[in-house]
């Protein structure tokens, strides 16, 4: 969904930058709070970022000036909250623009708004809603990853449609969405399954970190080793 450098007219670049910056600022403040309380969260945060980087590097060309790829933003959003992903997407997008000519510096605001703001927010909403209606962790994370991926693409189509409303915004938007769906439906389903696998792995290996992030509920440790009392 990365919009290429030079694709958007300059006023749209400025507009999307202005829209994305408040979320990024909030994300930086939250990130500061999380890492100040638990410095050992830093590696997990960076790995989530590297995960998003690698997932969104596996792209195939799609809609004009854009591409189709998994986003990987659902997992991080559920772990750390949506705005943290908005902030972490900034360096990811800079790396991709400079190292792989994928995305761009001037279109960074627009790309961050779709991949770092709308996608994660929808993913978190779906995750919380899913948990509330009683879905299991795996089902909820599946839906969150799926919706997070899809809303990213809906936003990207909106951005492209608004920049080139020809002949009208609606028809341009529908055109974009149709082309996106050909490649994006299989990709997003595959990505969601992958996210479930990773989530279950982490749940098995390090449930303590997830508990501290309030992702999974605190349970009474039933298999804790009893410390013999010393008299």
């Amino acid at each position: 969904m990365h919009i290429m450098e030079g694709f958007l007219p300059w006023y749209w670049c400025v507009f999307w930058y202005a829209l994305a910056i408040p979320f990024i600022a909030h994300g930086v403040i939250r990130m500061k709070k999380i890492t100040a309380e638990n410095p050992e969260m830093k590696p997990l945060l960076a790995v989530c970022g590297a995960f998003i980087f690698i997932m969104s590097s596996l792209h195939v060309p799609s809609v004009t000036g854009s591409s189709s790829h998994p986003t990987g933003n659902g997992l991080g959003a559920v772990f750390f909250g949506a705005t943290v992903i908005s902030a972490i997407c900034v360096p990811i997008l800079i790396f991709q623009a400079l190292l792989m000519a994928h995305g761009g510096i001037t279109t960074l605001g627009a790309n961050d708004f779709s991949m770092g703001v709308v996608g994660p927010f929808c993913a978190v909403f779906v995750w919380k809603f899913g948990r509330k209606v009683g879905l299991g962790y795996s089902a909820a994370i599946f839906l969150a990853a799926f919706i997070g991926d899809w809303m990213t693409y809906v936003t990207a189509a909106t951005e492209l449609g608004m920049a080139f409303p020809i002949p009208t915004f609606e028809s341009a938007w529908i055109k974009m969405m149709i082309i996106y769906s050909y490649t994006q439906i299989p990709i997003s389903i595959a990505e969601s399954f992958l996210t479930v696998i990773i989530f279950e792995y982490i749940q098995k290996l390090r449930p303590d970190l997830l508990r501290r992030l309030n992702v999974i509920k605190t349970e009474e440790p039933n298999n804790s080793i009893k410390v013999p009392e010393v008299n």
Partner: protein
Amino acid sequence: MFENFLDSYAHSNAIRNVNTYFKVLFGIITLIVSLVSTSPIIPLIIFISVSIIILYKAEIPVKFYLKFVTVPLTFASITFIFMALFFGTGQHIFNLGFLNLSVSADGFNRGFIVFSRIMGGFACMAFLGLTTPMTELFKVMEDMKFPKILLEISMLMYRYIFVSMDEAVTMYHSQETRLGYSSIKKSYKSMGILIANIFIKTWITGEKSFIAMESRGYDGSIRTMNDLGNIRNVGIKNLSYLILFEVILTYGVYLTSTYKIF
């Protein structure tokens, strides 16, 4: 898919030791000039001139650069064709003769402008990516008052990308020797296992290195040798070249602002 990484060239090109601020200023200002242009001429001139700088000043191998150019070139060409065919409302200048498709004048013009802007913007980004190592760009960002925590996470992330790619290559080869990719169904399964394992492996490696760093007095900032110059010692000569180049380009944007092919 990862062979397009240019980290090694960023460390070993011919203008590696030129003032970093000068290179960043050059890249960003040229990028903006290319973006605000309303005619396709100036972005194309920018693409050609910056490519010449990359190839002859920075001495990046032509073969590598051509391979790198094909990425945006494919995107830009698809965009051009798509816009010329579907994004026009004006008179038709060329009929394809099937499926009722035809190229319209305004669609062609719009597509060509976007094509040239993508190529112009790409050249500027490639200039930055190919001539300046990431660590020096981090330093520039630090001077621009980027939030410290974000920079720290970026540095860790940059390291982890390479860690996880190493892991990925090793695991991919071992899966391949065990016929993990012999059919489509198997390759999906192997790919899933691969990516899930990379996540865990990178995380464990990251945690280990984090503990190692903390036990050596890491307090949240990674200090590096800083010899990339200062914004003040760019030098009058370089600065005047830069200003001259950008003024000529801006004047060109003004002159060609109403130019159209059709």
